[in-house]
């Protein structure tokens, strides 16, 4: 088990290096001069040059990448071109917001998705199943940012139930925290929720037809116990896969959602960094989000081992 995890980790590292290097090189191709962008209004050419040297922009690509990566491993991602603040700090300031958002979204995804999926599987082929399936298909088709626009109009502006913008940390209390996150999290969770519903419904339905389940029921075990003991465990694998795969998308989806709700998270930071060409921040974001997703995938891979001992080879 540990060996298996270590092997997966050994694979994850080169991926991280490859991804960050590609982005680093890509950024290097960009037209425009980041030094000029931060030199202020009406800069002199000497001043631009001075900044370029200050930023180390005059060295070759590989040298810069190696020094960036070595520093990055020690949690030093350089400093923002916008105001000289350390990138680790800039991202660190905003990470809790996005983590909270993704956490609430994924929680909604799991709770609602699993419940709906189970209900549909138990009522397979009946009206309840059809309604749930139809709703799930519909949810997949709704663009999250559009849902966000509609939700904010209905529940914040018209009904006044939730704040329309901003974020409160958990330390300010559970409700202030949750009330700022609920609408954006719902918008973000619709798509993965629908997929979890469909996957779980299908996996459960398949498992429920298998012999050993029927046997177990014949042995007099109650249906809920059978579900809990056998079916759910088997159905967990495809659901976990969907969950892991969608995680990267949900993280990416925060880009549009955070703009609508003006949440100060890393998605909005990414958009701002694009507009201000704050390359160190953008690089840091790509590295960090890739790392987070890799870690999640690693955990999911390991969980496969738990659900299905066969893969531990």
């Amino acid at each position, binding site marked *: 088990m540990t060996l298996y995890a270590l092997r997966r980790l050994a694979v994850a590292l080169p991926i991280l290096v490859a991804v960050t290097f590609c982005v680093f090189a890509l950024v290097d191709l960009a037209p425009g001069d980041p030094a000029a962008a931060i030199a202020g209004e009406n800069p002199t050419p000497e001043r631009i040059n001075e900044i370029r040297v200050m930023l180390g922009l005059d060295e070759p690509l590989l040298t810069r990448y190696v020094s960036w990566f070595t520093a990055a491993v020690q949690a030093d991602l350089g400093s923002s071109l916008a105001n000289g603040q350390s990138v680790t700090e800039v991202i660190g300031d905003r990470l809790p917001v996005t983590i909270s958002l993704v956490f609430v979204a994924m929680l909604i995804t799991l709770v609602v998705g699993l419940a709906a999926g189970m209900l549909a599987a138990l009522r397979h082929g009946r009206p309840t199943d059809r309604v749930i399936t139809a709703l799930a298909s519909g949810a997949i088709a709704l663009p999250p940012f*559009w849902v966000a626009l509609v939700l904010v109009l209905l529940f914040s502006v018209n009904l006044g139930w939730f704040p329309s913008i901003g974020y409160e940390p958990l330390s300010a209390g559970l409700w202030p925290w949750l009330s700022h996150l609920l609408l954006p999290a719902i918008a973000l969770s619709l798509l993965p929720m629908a997929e979890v519903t469909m996957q779980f419904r*299908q996996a459960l339905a398949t498992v429920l037809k298998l012999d050993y389940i029927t046997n177990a029921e014949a042995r007099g075990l109650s249906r809920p116990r059978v579900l809990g003991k056998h079916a759910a465990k088997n159905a967990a694998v*495809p659901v976990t896969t969907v969950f892991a795969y969608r995680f990267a998308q949900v993280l990416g989806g925060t880009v549009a959602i955070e*703009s*609508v709700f003006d949440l100060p998270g890393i998605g909005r930071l990414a958009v701002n960094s694009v507009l201000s060409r704050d390359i160190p921040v953008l690089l840091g974001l790509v590295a960090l989000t890739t790392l987070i*997703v890799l870690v999640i995938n690693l955990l999911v891979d390991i969980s496969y081992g738990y659900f299905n001992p066969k893969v531990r080879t």
Partner: protein
Amino acid sequence: MSTAAQKPAGASAVGRGRLRGFVRAEPLAALSFVYLALIVLAAIFAPVLASHDPNAQQLMLRLQPWGGDHLFGTDDYGRDVFSRLVYGTRVTLQASAVAVGVSVLIGVPTGLLAGYRKGLVDAVLSRIFDGLMSIPGLILALTIVAVLGPGLTNAMAAVGLIFAPQFFRVTRAATQEVMGETYIESSISIGCKPTRVVLKHVMPNVVPAILVQISVALGVAVSAEASLSFLGLGVEAPTASWGSMLSTSAQTMTIAPNMVWLPGLMIFSVVLAFTLLGEGMRRALVSTGKNNDD
């Protein structure tokens, strides 16, 4: 693959009988197909359908309500909303085709190779695609936009890159499944060339799974285009896409609510149709009950 009752539309039926079977077994998917065909036709015949030049401004007639000379009213530059929706169909479909095209081109050949050769090739390719899957797509698209400047093609190619692993996985799984069949083993053992084996025996069996995936991916691509253009990082002005039509609509929710609803409805209905079609095809064409996501 969910119920035994849907099995008859399987591989044995051919030609018209098969089509009729599909329509009967999957009415929603068939309906979606018709709807999408109409949408594609609308895109092709946009110049005939549109009542106005989609980019012609009438600044003195901006934000007109429904009806009259302008069926769906006018936008914030006095452009005809109906005509922009029609032309937007083109842009949206083209952009989605770029994304899905890129992912098919990258994912399918590599998937075939990995499924056919197995071993080290398979392991290496699988890891690379795992890595691709770890990049949050929109953030990569943003980085590409930051580097190459706003423009739909660049951004959608980036989105396509992110979809590629799904095509790789589906193709690889389907290929592996076919490779397990005895007739393949025998044709290899009698000395058929690998390329011939792949083209003659493997491809036909893999195509249905890929078609399903294409349909689903097209839906997601339509949604992705909308997100990028919504952020102002997709299609360039004045070209209309459904996403770009939505991008400023939040600023005029009170004075022009139709600017929020109409493009949203188009995106919703087309993505829904692609999804339903994909699901229907999956049930009808992919005969095994195995999970393609492996």
